[in-house]
C-alpha cells in the first residue's frame, strides 16, 4: 500500500509502466516501439496533403473521394487514420472539427491534438456557438458563410482542406506546405497569405 495521499500523475504513470514491463506483460522495448509509431503522427503530414491537393487537381479529386487512400498514397496512415474523410472549405462554407465526447483526431495527418482542442471549453462551446468561438479565436466570418461543425462521434476521422490563400501563384508544393498550420486543418483558422 502507498500513503494516504493521491500519488502524482508522474508517479502513477511510472508505476504502471514499471509493473507492465517487470511482470512480463510488455516485452522490453514495447514502449519504445510505440514511441516510434508516435513520431509518425505529425500534423506536418496533413500540411503536405493539403499542399498536394492545392497543386494537383487529380490528387485533390482522389482526396475528396477517398481521404484514407489519398493520405496513404503519401505514406500517412496508422492508428486513428483508418477512415479519413476530407472536408472541403469553399468561399461559402467553413468546416470545423471537434470531438465533444473525448478528443478523437486523425492522428496520421493532424498529429496528437493540442490542449485547446481537448479542453472542455472548446468541446462544449463549438457545436453550439461556433461563430462566437471562432471570433474569440480571431476568425470573424460573415453571416452568409455557412459554418459546418463536424463532431467526431464515431470512427470517421476528419481533415479540413482549407482554401488556398491569395498570393501563392507559382508557389511550389513545399512552399505551400510551409504555410499550412494545424489550426487551419482543424478549421478554426484560415491559411494566411504569405507576407
Amino acid at each position, binding site marked *: *500500500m*502507498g500513503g*494516504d495521499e*493521491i*500519488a502524482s*500523475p508522474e*508517479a*502513477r*504513470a*511510472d*508505476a*504502471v*509502466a514499471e*509493473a*507492465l514491463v517487470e511482470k512480463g*506483460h*510488455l516485452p522490453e522495448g*514495447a*514502449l519504445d*516501439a*510505440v514511441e516510434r509509431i*508516435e513520431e509518425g503522427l505529425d500534423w506536418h503530414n496533413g500540411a503536405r496533403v493539403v499542399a498536394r491537393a492545392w497543386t494537383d487537381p487529380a490528387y485533390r479529386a482522389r482526396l475528396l473521394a477517398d481521404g484514407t487512400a489519398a493520405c496513404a498514397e503519401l505514406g500517412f496512415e496508422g*492508428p486513428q487514420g483508418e*477512415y479519413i*474523410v476530407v472536408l472541403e472549405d469553399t468561399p461559402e462554407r467553413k468546416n470545423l472539427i*471537434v470531438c*465533444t*465526447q*473525448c478528443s478523437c483526431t486523425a492522428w496520421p495527418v493532424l*498529429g*496528437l491534438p*493540442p*490542449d*485547446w482542442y481537448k*479542453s*472542455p*471549453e472548446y*468541446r*462544449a*462551446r463549438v*457545436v*453550439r456557438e*461556433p*461563430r462566437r*468561438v471562432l471570433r*474569440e*479565436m480571431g476568425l470573424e466570418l460573415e*453571416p*452568409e458563410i455557412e*459554418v*459546418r*461543425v*463536424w*463532431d*467526431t*462521434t*464515431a*470512427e*470517421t476521422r476528419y481533415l479540413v482542406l482549407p482554401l488556398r490563400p491569395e498570393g501563392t501563384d507559382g508557389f511550389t508544393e513545399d512552399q505551400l506546405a510551409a504555410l499550412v498550420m494545424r*489550426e487551419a486543418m482543424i478549421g478554426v483558422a484560415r491559411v494566411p497569405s504569405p507576407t
Partner: protein
Amino acid sequence: MDGIYDLGGVAGFGAVEVEADEPTFHEPWEATAFRINLASIGFLRAYNADEYRHAIERMQPVHYLQARYYERVLTGATTLLVEKGVLDLADLERRAGGRIPLALPVRPNPGDGRSEPREPRFRCGARVRVRDDHKPGHTRVPRYVRGRTGTVVHVAPPFSYPDASSHGLPKRCEATYHVEFEASELWGDDAETNAPVVVDLWESYLEEA
C-alpha cells in the same frame, strides 16, 4: 451514460485558450501515459478502444473535469489494467507511493443479441431521428442530438458497434451515418444562424423520421 464527459452544448464555459508553439507532451509522464495505453490496446490487447473510452467516461465527474487530457488517458488505462486483472492496485500504489484514483465501476448495457452485419438501411438525403435512449453504459450518441431530426449527408463503412463492444457483448459491425442537424433543431431560439452540426451516428441510434 448521460455523463459529464458528454460536453457538447453545455453552457457556462469560458474562452478557449490557445498555447503558442505547444509541445506534443508538456511533461515526460504524459508520453508515458500515452504509450502505456497504446501498448495495452495494440500489443497487450488487454482491452479495446471502446472499453478504454468508457473507462475514461466512468471517472469520478469532478476528477474528470479537473484532470488534464493525459491524466484521463492514464486513469482510463490504469483502471482497465486493474479491472482486467493484468495489474494489482495494491502493488501499483506501493510502487507509486500514494493512492491511485480509478474510474467508478461499469454499469452494463443491456445487449440486443444481434451480431450479424446488415446492409445500410439509410441513404444520403434520408431524414432520420436519433433515438432518445438513456443507456447506463457506454454509448456514442451525444445528449444534444437525442430525439432530434436530421439529414444523412454521408454513409460511412461498417464499424464495430461501441455500445456492445465496450461491454463484452457480441460484436457486430454496422454503418455509421454523418447526420446534419440544423442549429435551431438543436439549440432552439438561442442558435446561431447558418451553423449546422454534423454528427457521426451508428445505425442502431437512428430511426426513420
